[in-house]
């Protein structure tokens, strides 16, 4: 509520009651007026500017609230008296070297606390007085060269040159990280907090100049301080870390580096730091008051007060992981085909969330201003995806690749270009943190469903123009290569969205039936789609094989020569691609088998528990305010607009569950048969998994029937499939455990009051398939098992 009237009254005050302040200023005493007005205020009244929205106020900090007002932070005497221009430490005992080393060591650790442990800058790097001091100076005078910067002035080169340059190096790295964040790909706050407290982090100073300064520090240390090995290592580390901007495409455009040597050298330095540091953060002492909450009190701050973050000792191990993740991300440059790039991006951030810098660099390195990896235009990249899956050997491809620019060619190319946007969005979504990754699919599915509908129309139209391929052995149905690819991608996303819900612990145990049954259903649709494509590929390969016989029947002449030339093209270009595509399709077949079988095993186990009334595929919560159907429909809201495949209704899901149940009489005797069905499924999954694992381990030999495209993301892919294999084994064991527990109550067939169910992740198992685990009622564990 606005007290506009009161504000108006205050504004209308005149200088009738002038008071002389004693220094000649004319003041107006409004005390009485203010008292009168405030006494008239009601408790609910908010005095505010008319244009000020209360919602904006929710972001405000509150003065005099100790939890929110950073000006109330109390500093001790050391913090208050700290002088950045005083050379702390006894010069005769080596204490100064110890102090400087300690500050630099902590700054390196603080970088990891910030970037790897998700802490904020004010509680880590910016809590260092030297950082605050030097950046305050730079902010006041943002020059374009270090030569013009004011530095430390202690008259001790250890402080003035070595520490001063080290701080500059750390701040330059922060500047680079801010740029990475600004260029997108990761999320401010949740992925990375880049609050520099309005300090200018060397905006005008080039990284090269900073590296040169650090190199001069290193020379000084080597020449004049033989005892400074640790400090030398730290300086060398920082020099190497400042090479990272060279791998950030938006920072250096066409000069972006592809040689990873400097990064491998960084790893060597980190390794020696891990060896020598041994996690000891207390081996050096700092000048007293050097790290402080003071910056939060002194500088502009939009955040509540927060204690500074003390390094835990594992920072160099984190740095090792940080650098390895970056090297792994940049290895994407080795990929040559669309399928390899697709697989790289799919597996890279899969089993473990990669460090934020690696995720951001992957995106910027892969998706550049106008190309993929600087090798393929966006449209070419999209065409590669199509070609390497369903477009090779089709009439549509012949039209697209026809050099005579016909009108139909142009309109088809234009239509296909609409797909590039969807494809890039898919790529941008994959390196996101796990929560955003799933949420991204929620939006992507709208786009992909829409382009599928659009392309089914386009391809029907193209068929009417004679641009078509039919599958003879399947009743002459049309292939529709573009729609086939879109549908495959969409179905894979739908499956992933559903299964990611288990990873993120979004589902309760009672929801697992619908989710796994839905995944089984989607995989079956995917399998049918792939069968169509597989049949086409076989038909086309057979056609090419038999083409030679046709040529032999032709009479010598121009027609025969033309046919021979066409045959050569078919055997040299088309057939090899069709063979590769068949292997890719075989890989997806195996993915279908794995997801179908593991999902079905979960469905069997759920049905077993449902048969004993331990669980139901609907909430046991009060539905006073809602209904089972609303709850179900809300859960499937993401898919509510999907046209194909038709999403089963709540009633259909409930009916499906009934088909799996076992019933009295002799309910216990029916368990082995149900588990036998389940184990058959799990064996199918294991066969497929072992086959994929073997293919990856043996480097995808030429005679392998499967192409996994994981050559450049081998370790991650292997771990992923092995986690699935572990889950297949664990599910089988879990089936037996459930049977044993159910058999403990042979006389009962309603165990609702005996057991509760929890979803538990298995060690080294897949987070897509947590186990339905029985717990005695009322003795439920207090928290869920942490995801692996």
């Amino acid at each position, binding site marked *: *509520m606005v007290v506009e009237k009161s504000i108006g009254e205050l504004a209308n005050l005149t200088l009738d009651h002038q008071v002389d302040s004693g220094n000649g200023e004319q003041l107006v005493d409004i005390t009485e007026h203010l008292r009168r007005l405030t006494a008239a205020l*009601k*408790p*609910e009244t*908010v005095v505010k500017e008319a244009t000020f929205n*209360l*919602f904006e*106020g*929710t972001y*405000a*900090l*509150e003065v005099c*609230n100790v*939890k*929110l007002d950073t000006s109330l932070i109390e500093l001790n005497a050391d913090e208050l008296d700290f002088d950045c221009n005083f050379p702390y430490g006894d010069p005769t005992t080596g204490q100064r070297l110890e102090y400087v080393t300690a500050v630099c060591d902590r700054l390196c650790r603080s970088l990891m606390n910030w970037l790897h442990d*998700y802490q904020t800058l004010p509680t880590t790097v910016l809590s260092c007085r030297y950082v605050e001091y030097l950046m305050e100076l730079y902010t006041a005078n943002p020059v374009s060269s270090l030569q013009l910067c004011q530095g430390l002035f202690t008259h001790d080169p250890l402080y003035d040159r070595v520490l001063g340059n080290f701080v500059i190096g750390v701040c330059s790295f922060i500047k680079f990280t801010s740029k990475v964040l600004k260029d997108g790909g990761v*999320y401010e*706050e*949740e*992925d990375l907090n880049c609050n520099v407290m309005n300090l200018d982090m060397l905006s005008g100073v080039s990284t090269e100049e900073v590296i040169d300064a650090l190199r001069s520090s290193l020379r000084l240390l080597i020449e004049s301080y033989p005892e400074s090995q640790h400090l030398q290592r730290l300086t060398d580390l920082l020099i190497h870390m400042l090479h990272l901007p060279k791998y950030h495409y938006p920072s250096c455009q066409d000069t972006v580096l592809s040689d990873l040597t400097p990064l491998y050298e960084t790893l060597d330095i980190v390794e020696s730091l891990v060896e020598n540091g041994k996690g000891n953060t207390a081996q050096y002492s700092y000048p007293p008051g050097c790290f402080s909450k003071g910056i939060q009190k002194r500088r502009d701050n939009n955040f*509540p007060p*927060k204690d500074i973050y003390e390094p835990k000792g594992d920072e160099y191990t984190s740095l090792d992981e940080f650098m390895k993740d970056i090297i792994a991300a940049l290895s994407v440059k080795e990929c040559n085909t669309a399928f390899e790039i697709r697989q790289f991006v799919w597996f890279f951030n899969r089993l473990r969330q990669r460090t934020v810098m690696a995720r951001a660099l992957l995106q910027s390195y892969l998706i550049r201003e106008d190309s993929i990896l600087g090798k393929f235009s966006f449209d070419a990249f999209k065409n590669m995806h199509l070609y390497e899956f369903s477009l090779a050997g089709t009439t549509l491809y012949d039209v697209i690749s026809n050099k005579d620019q016909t009108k139909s060619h142009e309109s088809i190319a234009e239509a296909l270009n609409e797909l590039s946007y969807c494809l890039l969005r898919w790529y941008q979504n994959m390196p996101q*943190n*796990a*929560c*955003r990754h*799933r*949420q991204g699919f929620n939006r992507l599915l*709208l786009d992909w469903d829409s382009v599928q509908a659009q392309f089914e129309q386009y391809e029907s139209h193209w068929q009417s123009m004679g641009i078509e391929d039919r599958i003879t052995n399947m009743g002459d149905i049309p292939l529709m290569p573009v729609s086939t690819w879109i549908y495959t991608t969409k179905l894979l996303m739908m499956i992933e969205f559903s299964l990611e819900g288990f990873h*993120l*612990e*979004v*589902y*309760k145990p009672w*929801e697992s039936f619908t989710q796994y049954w839905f995944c089984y259903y989607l995989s079956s649709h995917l399998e049918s789609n792939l069968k169509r494509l597989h049949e086409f590929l076989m038909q086309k390969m057979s056609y090419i094989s038999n083409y030679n016989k046709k040529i032999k029947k032709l009479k010598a002449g121009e027609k025969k020569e033309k046919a021979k030339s066409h045959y050569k093209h078919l055997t040299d270009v088309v057939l090899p691609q069709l063979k590769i595509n068949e292997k890719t399709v075989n890989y997806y077949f195996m993915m279908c088998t794995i997801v179908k079988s593991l999902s079905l095993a979960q469905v069997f186990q759920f049905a077993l528990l449902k048969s004993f009334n331990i669980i139901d595929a609907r*909430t046991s*919560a*009060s*539905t*006073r*305010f*809602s*209904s089972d159907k*609303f*709850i179900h*429909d*809300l*859960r*499937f*809201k*993401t898919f*509510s*607009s999907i046209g194909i495949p038709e999403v089963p209704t709540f009633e259909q899901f409930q009916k499906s569950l009934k088909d799996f149940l076992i019933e009295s009489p002799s309910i216990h005797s029916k368990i082995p048969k149900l588990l036998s069905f389940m184990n058959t499924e799990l064996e199918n999954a294991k066969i497929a998994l072992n086959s994929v694992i073997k293919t990856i381990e043996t480097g995808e030999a030429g005679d392998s029937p499967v192409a996994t495209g994981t050559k450049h993301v081998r370790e991650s892919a292997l771990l992923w499939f092995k986690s699935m294999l572990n889950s297949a084994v664990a599910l089988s064991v879990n089936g037996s455990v459930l049977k044993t527990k159910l058999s403990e109550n042979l006389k009962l067939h309603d165990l609702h009051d005996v057991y509760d169910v929890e979803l538990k992740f298995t060690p080294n198992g897949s987070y897509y398939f947590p186990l339905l685990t029985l717990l005695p009622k009322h003795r439920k564990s*207090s*928290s*869920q098992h942490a995801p692996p």
Partner: protein
Amino acid sequence: MSGVRYTKFNISNDVEFSTIKKLIDEDLSEPYSIYVYRFFLNQWPDLTYLAWDEGVDKPIGCIVCKSDLHNGVRLRGYIGMLAVEKQYRGQGIAKKLITLAIDAMVEGKCDEIMLETECSNAAALHLYENMAFIRMKRLFRYYLNQGDAFKLILPLTEKSCVRSTFLSMDAFPTNTIV
């Protein structure tokens, strides 16, 4: 719990306002400014309820909510804060407060009710999930303490189950089934 009575928040009562602030400040991990309280309590005083123990002149529990149009297509209720003094916990007071708030939001023709809670807060999750809220998504490092959150939703009408893109205010009757 017998002896505990529940009232709607009285915006004209200073003590009620300051007690709500104190209850929440003591209980929640997020520090809220006075503006956050004013945002909720001044605009939606009817969606705040208090629990009082017999003979105690200050509230011992409270729930603070709001409701507004989400994406311009559905009315979304939101449970912003809920707190019960430690010594009164485990007596069903929070559940009663939630029930009163939901009733009020149903009355106000909300299509759904939403809230966020820390993934590690098993008690809160248990409480809301027993009232048919479901976890819609996980929010990475949502809180200042770096913790993830779950976004929970209780669907009250069919509108809650349809994507915003496909909803228009004219296409669906409000409050289809409650």
